[in-house]
């Protein structure tokens, strides 16, 4: 037994040896993207598949090594790295990092190309490369009839590279590179079939919506940079002592690593709470600079709200969620990888990464939680009436992301991250299952026109059932545990002076659970059970090839076994037990806990869910599922041919039209923007730029040139004479300078 433990605690490649190779994890998919994108057309289909899949497989193996290295404790010494911002004895445990040197510097501002893998980014590395590899494998079969296969795999590899950059970045600016990179890859893949204008528009919509969020993200970053410099100006020794640092060390860290490193921001967060004393606290006004007059706490709240807007863009939350359902225009594997498993969870990752800053602002946390809850509820309600299997899954993704945001907003970061991981497995499985259904049924997406597939597509059916149960929250699948962990934390954590939020969000959460169960059961029942619809495109569906079913089986298996993470198996330091995943992420989240305790902004609850909690959640989920089963198996089949009540029709129409949110945006945002754009086009572009600046410049140049042409006599001696005059002038000037 000890031998096995020792085996798992000793990384095959020692951390210090492996750390400089971290860049390879990003480089491999990038190389794959380059090869597929540039040479793909000549390489042929099989070679492109080989290159793309092996690039991701290589990245997966390297990620595994990196992950293993973060847990390395060979010889009883836990892997650790020095914290550039802290004192010498202050080390970051369970993390490996490598700094590739300065990326750019301007004045005293500097950004390094530094990569960091700790337990949080490690588990995400495994999800991205692992699920990514399965989806690549799946795509080899799914895209077998598409001519743009090389483009597809190049984009997909590019996406993985960008996502890995996002996750491994050790500072906000590098993270933003990945953030933009995944946005671009997503845009390229949504509009992959760009000849269809609706799909191209969907890509554009996603990109523009994301840009709004990215803008807020950037402003937030700038505010943070200003806050760091203000903090460094005003803090005294006690502040630094509270953060486990000293002024000299902190400044050295700033000059070596720059102000936007997560570790540096963490130190600032540790020094800011009132409880720790010192010259700087949340209510201290900033003295100088553009932010002078505002308090640190106020700026922090504003920053976090800006990051919320940024995360809402990427993670499809209110008010920027509208792009995600339209993003289903892309190929199904893309929906599974980007718009369910990885990219859209970037917002959740961002908040987990900056958890220590987030807990400084209860207002921002409450906003995040409420935004998450409302998004989740709205998306769940819209999903009721959608008939397109991918649209239902898309809204379900929005809804599940809302749940993660609730968790993040209420301070249960570990549960949100766990839900992120389990959701990645079962939602990828659902999407791939949907893709398999479409593949086997002539690209039919309307669930009303499917049905009875359980006989014809056995593997797809089985895996879809497993992941539906997982997302619905049925014991003992992973979705139940992770979702329940979020709701339990939401229920028992309390924000300072905002106690009502916990109750509200928890109540909404229960409603969402029921809704999720209802619409997921509806999709499952309509697609797989009952009789085959008479409107089906093909008479008999066919099961997909092993390239497609194997990933389904693996993902279904994973959506069951990840439940282990939520079980309270590890001893808690204060007695009792804590869930495996909480223990696992504690090296990452400990600073946030310390800040929360000192700032008294969030009362973090440590209890584990009891039997009663489980029972309530289970009953709610079951009731939703049972309602769906009753309606779609018994009630509606019996109602066929009877007139539908007007009220039900109206509700259904409203939900089907997504509560007219798109139309609302069209009316209050897009129309005015278009009008302003039209004015700008007519006045600024057409008149000022085109006529005055462009044509005016050409006109003046032409006239001046026409005049100057007369000076061009062709007489070489005249030119020489002018040269001589110039020389004389220069000589006279020099002489006068010397004489005077």
């Amino acid at each position, binding site marked *: 037994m000890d031998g096995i433990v020792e085996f798992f605690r000793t990384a095959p490649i020692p951390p210090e040896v492996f750390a400089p190779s971290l860049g390879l994890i990003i480089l491999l998919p990038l190389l794959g993207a380059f090869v597929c994108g540039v040479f793909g057309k000549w390489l042929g289909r099989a070679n492109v598949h080989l290159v793309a899949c092996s690039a991701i497989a290589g990245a997966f193996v390297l990620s595994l090594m990196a992950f293993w290295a973060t847990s390395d404790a060979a010889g009883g010494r836990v892997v650790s790295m020095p914290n550039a911002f802290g004192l010498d004895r202050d080390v970051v445990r369970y993390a490996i990092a490598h700094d590739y040197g300065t990326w750019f510097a301007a004045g005293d501002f500097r950004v390094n190309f530094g990569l960091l893998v700790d337990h949080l980014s490690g588990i995400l590395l495994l999800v991205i490369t692992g699920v990514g590899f399965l989806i690549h494998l799946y795509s080899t079969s799914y895209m077998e009839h598409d001519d743009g296969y090389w483009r597809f795999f190049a984009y997909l590899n590019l996406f993985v590279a960008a996502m890995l950059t996002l996750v491994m970045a050790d500072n906000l600016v590098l993270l933003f590179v990945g953030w933009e990179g995944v946005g671009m890859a997503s845009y390229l893949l949504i509009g992959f079939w760009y000849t269809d204008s609706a799909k191209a528009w969907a890509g554009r919509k996603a990109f523009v919506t994301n840009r709004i969020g990215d803008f807020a993200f950037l402003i937030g970053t700038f505010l943070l940079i200003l806050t760091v410099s203000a903090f460094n100006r005003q803090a005294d020794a006690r502040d630094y002592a509270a953060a486990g640092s000293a002024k000299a060390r902190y400044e050295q860290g700033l000059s070596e690593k720059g102000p936007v490193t997560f570790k540096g921001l963490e130190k600032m967060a540790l020094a800011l709470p009132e409880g720790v004393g010192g010259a700087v606290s949340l209510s201290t006004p900033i003295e100088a600079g553009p932010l002078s007059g505002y308090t640190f706490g106020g700026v922090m709240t504003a920053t976090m709200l800006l990051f919320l807007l940024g995360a809402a863009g990427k993670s499809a939350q209110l008010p920027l969620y509208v792009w995600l359902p339209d993003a289903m225009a892309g190929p199904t594997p893309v929906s599974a990888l980007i718009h369910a498993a990885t990219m859209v969870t970037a917002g959740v990752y961002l908040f987990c990464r900056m958890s220590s800053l987030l807990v400084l602002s209860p207002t921002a946390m409450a906003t995040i939680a409420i935004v998450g809850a409302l998004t989740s509820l709205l998306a769940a309600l819209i999903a009721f009436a959608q008939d397109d299997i991918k649209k239902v899954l898309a809204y379900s993704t929005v809804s599940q992301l809302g749940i993660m945001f609730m968790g993040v907003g209420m301070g249960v970061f570990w549960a949100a991250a766990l839900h992120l991981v389990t959701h990645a497995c079962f939602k990828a499985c659902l999407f791939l299952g949907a893709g398999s259904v479409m593949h086997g049924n002539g690209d039919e997406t309307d669930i009303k026109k499917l049905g009875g597939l359980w006989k014809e597509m056995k593997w797809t059916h089985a895996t879809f059932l497993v992941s539906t149960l997982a997302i619905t929250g049925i014991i003992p699948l992973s979705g139940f545990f992770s979702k329940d962990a979020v709701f339990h934390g939401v229920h028992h954590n309390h924000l300072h002076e905002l106690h009502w939020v916990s109750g509200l969000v928890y109540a909404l959460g229960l409603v969402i659970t029921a809704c999720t169960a209802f619409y997921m059961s509806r999709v499952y029942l309509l697609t797989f059970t009952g009789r085959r619809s008479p409107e089906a495109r093909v008479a008999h569906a066919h099961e997909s090839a092993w390239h497609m079913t194997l990933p389904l089986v693996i993902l279904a298996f994973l959506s069951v076994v990840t439940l282990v993470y939520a079980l309270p198996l590890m001893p808690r330091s204060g007695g009792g037990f804590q869930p495996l995943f909480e223990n696992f992420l504690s090296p990452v989240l400990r600073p946030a806990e310390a800040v929360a305790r000192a700032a008294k902004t969030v009362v973090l609850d440590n209890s584990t869910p009891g039997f009663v909690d489980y029972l309530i959640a289970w009953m709610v989920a079951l009731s939703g599922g049972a309602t769906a089963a009753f309606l779609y198996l018994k009630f509606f089949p019996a109602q066929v041919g009877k007139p539908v009540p007007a009220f039900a029709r109206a509700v259904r129409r409203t939900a089907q039209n997504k509560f007219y949110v798109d139309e609302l945006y069209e009316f209050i945002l897009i129309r005015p923007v278009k009008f302003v754009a039209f004015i700008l086009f007519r006045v600024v572009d057409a008149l000022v730029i085109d006529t005055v600046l462009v044509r005016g410049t050409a006109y003046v140049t032409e006239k001046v040139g026409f005049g100057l042409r007369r000076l061009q006599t062709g007489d070489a001696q005249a030119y020489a004479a002018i040269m001589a005059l110039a020389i004389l002038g220069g*000589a006279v000037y020099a002489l006068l300078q010397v004489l005077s």
Partner: protein
Amino acid sequence: MNIELALFGVFAVMTLVSAGLVITARSPINSAMALVSTFFFLAGIYVLLWAHTVAVMQVLVYAGAIMVLFLFVIMLLNLGDAAHRGRPTVTRILGGASAFGLLAVLAVTLGRTQAMPAELGPQAQATFGTMAAIGQSIFTSWLLPFEAVSLLLLVAMVGAVVVAKSRI
């Protein structure tokens, strides 16, 4: 009055007179002959500056090779006396004036300076300006420019053939 200054005076005057003939002679042949004499007197001045090697080179290359080339071209083209010296256009007047102006400026500048030759030790006196010293310098520290110049001469040779030949 020492002999060196006297020699310099003679050579300088003769140089300037010959140069004046170059720019004023009607016939190109006369110009060329005056140029040859300029080169010879200049070589004398070089000797006064202890630049024996360059003086020899001046006579060999300039007075020998380049002037032969000039005379050869003049005879090839069969150029007689110029019918007129050229109309005095604005640019010519301006150019000529600026040449005189430059001379004035340089004269004023040089008139304010007082530079004397370096006092060389016996060892330096023995090597200064000799072929050995120049060769040493060219083939060690100035090798790259030297090779570049040899390449330039090659290019010039090929170029001259290409430009001057009517049909290749």
